[in-house]
């Protein structure tokens, strides 16, 4: 069961919901958490994992052996990204344009191209005190490509399997998606079973909700909504969800006490244990909505 927690913009409480869902699930199920917000991962602030493994990830970029290269130009022709130029008796590679597709290596008639890893970021992993297997991707500052890191993060498998406490424990994976509605979000959603959309009842919240809901629909994924800071705006979100057959699975009221605890790095269910049952119901509700 792979659940993605997403929201169109940052600051809606997406990570609050994702981490609380993980903590509640971990009371009986084997939980694996992937923080896919690679530009600014912050789920670790709430789940407190011990991150004892760090692996550099990136893409394979070409390097040309000047001895073997005949400057035939085939590699430059095949590269859609103009990351190679064969010019004036030189073969120039521009690693920051390269997408690591491997085409140039494949077509070089002289086998003059070998590949080296260009590091784009790192995957930190470990486990939390509750036994949640945890991994986060962290993008290197100044490099623009998130998707290759996300692919690696999705493939990561924990060195120590997550602890399963209860009878009949299920495997639950929770992905905290990046904000926005572009390629990294699509990559995070791909292969998921359910999308939990976190929003707030404001015009901005609704605008961003619509965008991510559209991606989930295009990918054919079942989805449901959590309204955070319920009560601060109008209920245009509720009306839109009803009109679009998008169930609202949980409403979290605006409470100063909760907001302050979260600002200190306490998870919602630790700061306000009365929400535990709500999150447990949310989890079961999600599971029941995924076609077996």
């Amino acid at each position, binding site marked *: 069961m792979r659940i993605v927690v997403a929201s169109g913009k940052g600051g809606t409480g997406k990570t609050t919901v994702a981490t609380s869902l993980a903590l509640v699930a971990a009371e009986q199920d084997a939980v694996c958490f992937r923080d896919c917000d690679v530009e600014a991962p912050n789920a670790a602030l709430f789940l407190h994992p011990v991150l004892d493994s760090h692996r550099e990830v990136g893409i394979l970029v070409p390097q040309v052996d000047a001895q073997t290269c005949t400057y035939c130009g085939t590699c430059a022709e095949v590269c859609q990204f*103009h*990351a190679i*130029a064969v*010019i*004036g008796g030189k073969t*120039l590679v*521009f690693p920051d*344009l390269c997408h690591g597709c491997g085409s140039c290596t494949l077509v070089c008639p002289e086998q003059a191209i070998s590949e080296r890893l260009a590091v784009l970021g790192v995957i930190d992993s470990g486990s939390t005190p509750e036994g949640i297997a945890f991994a986060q991707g962290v993008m290197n500052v100044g490099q*623009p*490509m998130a998707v290759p890191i996300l692919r690696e993060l999705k493939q990561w498998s924990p060195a120590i399997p997550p602890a399963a406490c209860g009878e009949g424990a299920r495997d639950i994976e929770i992905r905290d998606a990046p904000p926005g509605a572009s390629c990294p979000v699509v990559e995070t959603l791909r292969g998921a079973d359910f999308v939990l959309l976190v929003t707030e009842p404001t015009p901005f919240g609704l605008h961003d909700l619509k965008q991510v809901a559209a991606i989930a629909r295009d990918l054919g994924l079942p989805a449901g909504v959590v309204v955070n800071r319920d009560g601060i705006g109008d209920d245009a979100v509720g009306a839109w969800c009803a009109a679009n057959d998008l169930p609202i699975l949980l409403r979290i009221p605006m409470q100063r006490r909760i907001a302050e605890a979260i600002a200190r790095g306490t998870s919602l269910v630790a700061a306000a244990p009365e929400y535990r049952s709500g999150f447990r119901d949310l989890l079961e509700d999600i599971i029941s909505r995924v076609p077996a």
Partner: protein
Amino acid sequence: MKLAISCSGTTLDSPFDARFGRAAAFCVVDTDTGAWTAHANPALSATGGAGVQAAQLVAKLGAQSVVSGAYGPKAFDTLSAAGIAMLLAAGNEARSAADILALFQAGDLIQAGAPSHTGHHGG
């Protein structure tokens, strides 16, 4: 000597375009005979690597010098590798490619010694 000028149309009368990678076209003038040809820039619609692609076009057209307003680092490297001299003209005046040609012939253009900006990320 063949001189390429970045411009926004396909004649010598069309306005000079100061952007190298994103110029609409390049006029290539034979500075000895005055004969010229114009070539649309395929890099105009590229999502990334426009500078590299435009530089490859200019090299393929056989230019030995090029005039534009600015060269990004990748365009600079590619044009340097091709041995093409990069000349600079300011883009904030209304000038045609023909005006640029006249400046070139009067020896009024300076050569770019280094990339003009840090380039653009295309994602």
